[in-house]
């Protein structure tokens, strides 16, 4: 079993050629991503968990996503204790099912969101969860690197666009999506006039659409 801590103490192989020793290579890469990326490369980190059960990578994912999954579950009505427990369980699923992550199909945040969403249904609402059939891809079609890259760029544009929304618009989109409050419920909760809410949400969606081309 790979001991990450040893890797951190001595991340460089003696030869200086990191591509030979897999565990050291992985940790070195993890450290590089930690150092170089202001914004993290969550897809790369997930693939490191998938390929090598890389704990440094997983801790980065946990630190970013676990508190946000907790927040999502609380918005969906779970109390803080339940939300924390389910968030941990969701992250356990991320660890266990990392092999199923396919960067050509979804970004890391989208994949983790669907795991959190499923946890909401299974553990909090406790109902059955009917799922669509998986699409079956013909074997000869290899998932192309460019596809993964394009999808990643698209998700980054979307995340940037959301991040760049005026705070008030972002909060309203969040309320509408996560708590699926209707416009009039949002009006009740925020004390804003209905017209203001409608126009803010419309503006926000227009900006997002504009950002996505």
């Amino acid at each position, binding site marked *: 079993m790979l001991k990450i801590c040893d890797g951190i103490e001595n991340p460089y192989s003696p030869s200086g050629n990191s591509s030979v020793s897999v565990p050291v290579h992985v940790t070195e890469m993890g450290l590089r991503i930690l150092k170089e990326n202001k914004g993290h490369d969550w897809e790369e980190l997930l693939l490191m968990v998938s390929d090598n059960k890389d704990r440094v990578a997983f801790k980065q994912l946990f*630190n970013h*996503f676990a508190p946000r999954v*907790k927040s999502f579950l609380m918005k969906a009505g779970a109390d803080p204790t339940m939300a924390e427990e389910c968030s941990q369980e969701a992250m356990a699923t991320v660890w266990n099912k990392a092999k199923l992550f396919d960067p050509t199909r979804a970004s890391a945040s989208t994949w983790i969101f669907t795991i959190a969403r499923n946890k909401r249904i299974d553990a909090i609402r406790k*109902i059955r969860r009917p*799922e*669509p059939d998986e699409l079956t891809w013909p074997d000869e079609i290899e998932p192309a690197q460019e596809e993964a890259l394009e999808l990643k760029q698209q998700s980054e544009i979307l995340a940037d666009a959301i991040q760049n929304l005026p705070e008030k618009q972002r909060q309203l989109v969040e309320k509408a*999506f996560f708590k*699926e409050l209707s416009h009039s419920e949002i009006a009740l909760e925020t004390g804003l006039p209905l017209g203001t809410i409608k126009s803010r949400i419309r503006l926000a969606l227009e900006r997002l659409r504009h950002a996505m081309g």
Partner: protein
Amino acid sequence: MNNDKKIKHHLSKDLLIRYSNGSLCEAFSLAVATHISMCDDCRAALESYEALGGALLDVSDPEEMSDDSFESLMALIEEQPDQTTQVSKRNASDVPSALSDYIGGSLKDIKWRPIGLGVKQSLLKTSGNSTARLLYIPAGTAVPHHSHNGNELTLVLKGAFEDEVARFGPGDVEMADEDLDHQPVAVEGEDCICLAVTDAPLKFHTFIHKFVQPFLKI
């Protein structure tokens, strides 16, 4: 299940959003999952709502976790046996697996109960207040005229029906609410099988149907 390019009537945005964030009730989720298995357009729309969910998650304000949450999770992971990821099962049914899980196989395995005029139904067991049932309408036969207290979603699985609104073929979804008073008729040539989901009992107009409604649970 082949994706039918001829699907003309799709799921509403509202249903897709609620399915994507996990707030939809079981009966409607069953209909959504079944339709998406047949419809590439709605699958793509669902994926874009999931992407929006992911992006919102990514930029949302965090809720602090307790200090040892990572360590305790890793301790738990250490204890559990190595999880091997399972290959998704092959669906041998003539309906999407979401639905075949509820009927225990294929369309021929459904246990029908006659509800009059050749029309048959089969109630599916779902939690919550919404009801999911399959309807069997012989070719050329009409389902009694009815309106609704709430929302009704009808998804055609086989054959086709027509009502005052349009013609609905395999994979098509009709959404009806309180304002729609309609009489679906199965088109000639093939018996029609639909999945019908309601969040309130249907209101049938004839006295006899009002009388039997509580017993038939429709």
